[in-house]
């Protein structure tokens, strides 16, 4: 069992969350080489130590946030809301908190 400090809801059991992964910046498809695409799609740093990663609170606020976690001990030392920009501008991949439909969003 691992407690994750959701910046919106407080500490909750990790089973309420979905692991999203390391943050990767999407390269420009017009100029990216094969190697850059390979790294974007598949290469992961997979460190044994402190890492910064994204989680989604699927059984809570249904928002994304960032966690600093130690991958050997699973200790968590910080969590952040996504950068303000990510929540206020349109997100082409629909990944930011602002575009996520909440559980009470109603039928649609």
């Amino acid at each position: 069992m691992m407690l994750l400090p959701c910046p919106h809801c407080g500490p909750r059991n990790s089973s309420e969350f979905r692991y999203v992964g390391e943050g990767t910046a999407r390269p420009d498809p017009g100029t990216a080489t094969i190697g850059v695409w390979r790294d974007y799609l598949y290469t992961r740093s997979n460190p044994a130590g402190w890492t910064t990663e994204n989680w989604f609170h699927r059984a809570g606020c249904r928002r994304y946030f960032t966690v600093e976690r130690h991958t050997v001990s699973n200790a968590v030392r910080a969590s952040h809301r996504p950068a303000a920009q990510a929540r206020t501008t349109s997100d082409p991949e629909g990944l930011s908190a602002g575009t996520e439909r909440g559980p009470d969003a109603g039928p649609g």
Partner: protein
Amino acid sequence: MLSRLSSRNGHGMRARYSAFNLVRYGIGSGEWPRAWRDHEMKASYDVIIVGGGVHGLAVAYYLAADHGITNVAVLDKGYIGSGGSGRNTAIIRSNYLTPEGVRFYDRSVKLYERLAGELNFNVMFSQRGHLTLAHSDSSLRTMHWRAEVNKLEGIDSEVIGPQEIKALVPFMDTSESTRYPILGALYHPPGGIIRHDAVVWGYARAADALGVHIHQNTEVTGIDVSGGRVAGVRTDRGSIAAPVVVNCTAGWSTLISDMAGVDMPVTTSPLQAAVTEPVRPFLRPVIVSGTLHIYVSQTDRGELVFGASVDPFPSYSMRGSLEFTEELAGHILELMPSLSSVRVLRQWAGLCDMTPDYSPIMGVTPVEGFYVDVGWGTYGFKAGPVAGETMAQLIATQKTPELITAFGLERFSRGALVGEKGAASVGH
């Protein structure tokens, strides 16, 4: 014992395990010789293998046995078999989904079948049959797909119905009143379980007899690369030069590849398992349910061995969790309600190096002389012999054997992923 082995018995000599020697050492005064020796670390080797599990030791054994390359060192940061090789649930099978996967694992089953005789070590391979349950139309369809691919490759594999399942496993609840009724199963008679420690020890003993050095408690801290090719490794016991370094470290493989500057498409996740107290033999085949995320088998000692799918987030932690045990127990009881009073004795976790296509990464890397035999996810133990055989062939001949051409690291640049996901995600 060590001096007796090395001086009186001479290099490479071993007391064979036999009925005669069992009596001789049983009633005589002598002790069994040690199965493998400790050596001084040399300044250089022809091949250094990082990771002393079944893969690393098998590569070393086949390098020596098939190709006469004996100036080989196997390094492990702990004791041999302390990683995934001692933590898996010891299931062997070859009923995969892709032709590449089926051919590859079939070769491994064949090598396992003759391993006890070849290594003179009882690995207790018990081919008791393997059942992969289908609880939905879509998984039944996948089972038919797998059965047809398996048959084309000559593998004994067929889809059977609930009545036949009930005949094989009378304790299983095959009624329609369960939450996930069993619609059928993929039955694979050659599948089974093995004693995983014995496989590791058998390879270690045989490799040692052929001259391979096994260095336990030797942690690799760096890999020297100069001019695009590997020059050796640094360890907490000093540096060793070698023109060939093989990464066989499974869950830790990213960390070793990073030392050589090779990026890996791998994430490491724990997979938890548990074992119960021994009960009378009642369960012959291995039972796997992808829908319930469990697999269960009964060992020769009567213990029930349970495994699950990988944890839902990457981690190098090998601690178990209560959530896992609760969920596992609930699902086991859905299948076999009569187990409700059986107690769990131990639980543990092993580290799985997961790849995007649920297939291994084997072969050369951009660094000349640095080979990888990684990405073994949840299916590494069953592949140990064939991985050792093919990696040894690659290192000795510099040609990639046909069996592993689909598994190269460069496939991620070409977009030629293998697509074993349908069969391997929890199907042990």
